């Protein structure tokens, strides 16, 4: 199979399509934790209890009320092959926790992979909406609609004072975790990222690197999410995150302008050099891949690299991970083999646009 066919068959909506502010915001994710009353949380559930939760949720997902929300399929983690499971984690559709620690774990997946409902993770239900670009409000609107449709058939653990009851006290109340994944090379290269990150953590938000931690995030990709779930309404939580993310977008744009004004030649050298390496290397590890991809994406956004789709960052950050590489190869690969395969997959992907 060619890389382009492979991408057509396996990519999630967030990887294929653009959204608002797509030059900086890669994706928006809303996760909502819910539990059924009268059943212990997954950590204490026996196999039978977990099965019962799964069948209740499956019935709700397959009900008539749910049909209006799209076409869903329930996949049991235990029945998916290792490599395919890994690929779902790499596409950010399910958590590693669901794969590794869950008993009778499953996911109800919408066919466009925008909605995925994890079952028997840390909570009975983790509703996830994953959109391309900056779409916090739409994301919440869809998540709450999915939540309402599930609640038509399920009895939730809800308390008037504490809200939606969750296994971990850090999620109780609204149970909502909203986040945006941002590409911030301008703030990193102008050495402003540390200051921004510490400011963010003072307004009730959490930042982490998607790959690597803190200001050393590999590939300059950061995920910013709300920390608090109790005491504020969902609308306030979303609004607070949207305002702060909006400010970061503005800072990132200013930083990119500053880079071009003050260091055009060295930035151009950097991004073109990275493109040369991705287009020609025969062997590359995942860390270097992310660094070079970030450079190339910046070069595309600044108009220094032409004729290459801006989507390569999203596509390649996912399909060069071990699970996808092996899915594409069709066989299991030892770590050293992956570096060779990764380089050849990247070269092939770049040739599609040329």
């Amino acid at each position, binding site marked *: 199979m060619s890389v382009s066919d492979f991408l057509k068959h396996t990519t999630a909506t967030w990887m294929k399509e653009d959204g608002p502010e797509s030059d900086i915001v890669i994706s928006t994710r809303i996760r909502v934790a819910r539990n059924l009353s009268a059943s*212990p949380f997954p950590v*204490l559930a026996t196999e039978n209890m977990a099965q019962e939760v799964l069948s209740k949720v499956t019935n709700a997902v397959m009900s008539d009320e749910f049909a209006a929300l799209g076409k869903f399929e329930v996949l049991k983690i235990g029945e998916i092959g290792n490599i395919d499971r890994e690929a779902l984690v790499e596409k950010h559709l399910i958590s590693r926790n669901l794969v590794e620690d869950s008993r009778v774990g499953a996911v109800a997946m919408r066919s466009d992979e925008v909605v995925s409902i994890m079952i028997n993770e840390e909570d009975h239900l983790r509703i996830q909406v994953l959109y391309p670009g900056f779409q916090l409000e739409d994301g919440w609107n869809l998540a709450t609609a999915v939540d309402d449709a599930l609640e038509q058939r399920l009895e939730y653990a809800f308390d008037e*004072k504490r*809200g939606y009851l969750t296994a*971990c*006290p*850090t999620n*109780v109340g609204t149970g909502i975790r909203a986040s945006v994944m941002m590409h911030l090379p301008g703030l990193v290269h102008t050495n402003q990222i540390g200051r921004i990150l510490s400011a963010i953590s003072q307004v009730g938000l959490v930042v982490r690197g998607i790959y690597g931690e803190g200001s050393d995030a590999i590939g300059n990709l950061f995920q910013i999410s709300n920390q608090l779930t109790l005491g504020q*309404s*969902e609308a306030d939580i979303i609004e607070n995150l949207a305002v702060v993310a909006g400010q970061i977008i503005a800072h990132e744009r200013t930083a990119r302008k500053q880079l071009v004004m003050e260091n055009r030649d060295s930035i151009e050298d950097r991004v073109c050099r990275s493109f040369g390496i991705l287009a020609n290397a025969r062997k590359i590890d995942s860390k270097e891949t992310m660094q070079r991809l970030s450079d190339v994406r910046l070069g595309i956004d600044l108009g220094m690299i032409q004729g290459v789709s801006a989507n390569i960052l999203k596509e390649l950050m996912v399909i060069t991970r071990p699970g996808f590489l092996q899915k594409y190869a069709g066989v299991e690969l030892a770590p050293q083999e992956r570096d060779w395969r990764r380089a050849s997959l990247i070269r092939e992907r770049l040739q599609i646009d040329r």
Partner: protein
Amino acid sequence: MDCSECGNRPATVYFTKITNGSKTEMHLCEVCAKEKGELLGTTPNGFSINSLLAGILNFESQGIPVSAPQTLRCNTCGLTFNQFSQIGRFGCSDCYQAFEPRLDPLLRRIHGGTTHTGKIPARSGGVIQKRREIDQLRHQLNDRIQKEKFEEAASLRDQIRALESELGGSPNVSE
């Protein structure tokens, strides 16, 4: 009761162990419990989720320390407050009621707030929704009375009465 091992310190941890069908109970202090716990492959301060699981589901046969009765305990799933504070996870939704006396400081430390002000379940939350509306109307009512806007106050009072009678009149409002 003093520790049955050293006899020096008060017993705060109870072990029950079944060996070859015969049951031994040990009442130990923290220090001795820790030693015993290590021998048995479990420690009171930091046992793994697996041993906790085993312990909760099958207390007697596992030699898991059972905390002294004065600690809070969820009758539905068996989790004690001490176990909760070690693993940082509730065992079931009833744990919230069982540990209620100790939750406010914890939640305040994590979230700042202690009370949910967000979404209410659309289908089953009708009663709560009405109570919230009544609360809001009462605030408005007080405000109008203070400002001596009695006509508006009277209409608010009618709305509150109407909502209250809906709540009182049909006990199955939530359905």
